[in-house]
Structures are given as structure tokens and as C-alpha cells.
């Protein structure tokens, strides 16, 4: 499932910002992998702070960076299926049944709530949004996760 071809500027921006993402994730014993072909596709292996034996595989797919939010999906492995309910954590706003995250940091959330494009929930395209998305995912796993979806 490849994303649209990523423009060169987005590729350069992602390469720059992904360094901080790697530092953040590996500092928590996680993993970051970039797809060898689709340069907008990243795979994160994240672990909740209170259950480090648990691995969640997250696909973060950028079509433009940093000007547009990424598609964020949980998978059953790096490069794995995106339609597995048990790959998802139970977190408010995360919807394992719909395989999406209805929050203002994902493309899926902004598609459902177009009104988020205006006002305080608009996509933040300044700084390092990739790091912010990653930190948000990790924080949700650490503080709001109620376990793995069935």
C-alpha cells in the first residue's frame, strides 16, 4: 500500500526531522524504519512505558511534509496488515473497528472532521510535526492505553 509519490522537498524535510524521531523512539527501546521504496512511509515500533514487553507497530505515511498530516495506522508487523483489530491499542479516539485515529494529528481525523482545519485544531506545520505525532502516539500508549484491542 504505497502512498503518493513524495516530492523532493518533503523527502528532504522528512530526512531532517526523522533524526529527532529516531532519537526519541530508540531512547525508549523502540524502532524506526523507513520504507526502502516509498520515502514517505515510516514504521515505528512503540512500547508502552508500563508494559515494555508489548510492541505496537505503527505505519506513518506522509504524502506531503510538513504541510499535511500523515495517515497513521497500526499493523500486525513492520510492513504487515493494516486491517487487524488486535494490532490496535484501546485508547480514546483510536478506533480499532474503523482502523483509524479520530484525532487532529492524522489524515484520517482531518478527513472525518474537516472543521478541524480551521481554528485551534488545525494541522501544525511548523517545527517538527513528525516528532510531535510520534510523541503523541507514545504519550497515548504510556498514559491512556487500556490494553490491546481484542
Amino acid at each position, binding site marked *: 500500500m504505497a502512498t503518493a509519490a513524495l516530492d523532493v522537498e518533503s523527502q528532504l524535510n522528512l530526512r531532517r526531522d526523522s533524526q529527532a524521531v529516531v532519537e526519541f523512539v530508540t531512547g525508549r527501546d523502540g524502532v524506526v524504519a523507513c520504507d526502502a521504496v516509498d520515502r514517505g512511509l515510516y514504521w515505528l515500533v512503540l512500547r508502552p512505558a508500563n508494559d515494555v514487553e508489548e510492541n505496537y507497530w505503527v505505519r506513518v505515511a506522509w504524502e506531503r511534509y510538513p504541510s499535511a498530516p500523515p495517515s497513521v495506522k497500526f499493523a500486525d508487523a513492520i510492513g504487515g496488515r493494516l486491517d487487524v483489530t488486535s494490532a490496535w491499542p484501546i485508547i480514546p479516539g483510536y478506533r480499532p473497528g474503523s482502523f483509524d485515529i479520530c484525532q487532529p494529528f492524522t489524515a484520517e481525523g482531518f478527513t472525518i472532521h474537516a472543521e478541524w482545519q480551521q481554528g485551534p485544531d488545525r494541522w501544525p506545520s511548523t517545527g*517538527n510535526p513528525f516528532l510531535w505525532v510520534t510523541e503523541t502516539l507514545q504519550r497515548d500508549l504510556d498514559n491512556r492505553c487500556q490494553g490491546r484491542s481484542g
Partner: protein
Amino acid sequence: MSELRDTELSAKVKGIEVTVTFPLAHGKPFHAKQAPETTVGTVRSEAMSQFGIQEEANSTYYLTHGGSRVDDGATLASIAGESEAVKFTLVKELVQG
């Protein structure tokens, strides 16, 4: 003699170098030298002002130190301990679900 001691003491407590980073910041991190009794809430407010951020209804902002959330009421002295510098990260947390 006591004046000299006072001078030495004031030099020791003259301030704590504070750095606040924010992933979504457009520019450089926030840097300031603050009095040890300054609260984290004050630092957060000044950092948000530099970053051009205002409080928003659907988000909460707070500072973390060493990966842990820090209460707005804590003083820099209580966090820095013997250190003359302390680094925080400003977190924007979405509250809707």
C-alpha cells in the same frame, strides 16, 4: 567579610539557566536565566509567549523534565537541585477523544 560572603552567596544563587524546547516551534528553543524560586508555570508561560502559542480549548500545554510531567507550581530550584541549568520540553497534548 559578611559582604564578601553575601556576594559569594548571591553569585551562587543568581539564577538558573533554563532551556525549553518545543517540537512544533518555528524558531529556536526558549532560553532564559531565572531566579531559583521561579515557578515552572512562569517558565511555561514565557516560553509559550516566545513560541507564539496561546492556550487552546482542546489542548493542554505542560512542561516535562527527564520525560516526566512537571507541575506548574514547582520551583526551578526543586527541579534543578545543585545544577545551574535545567532543560524542559513543552508538550502540546490533545484532550479530545
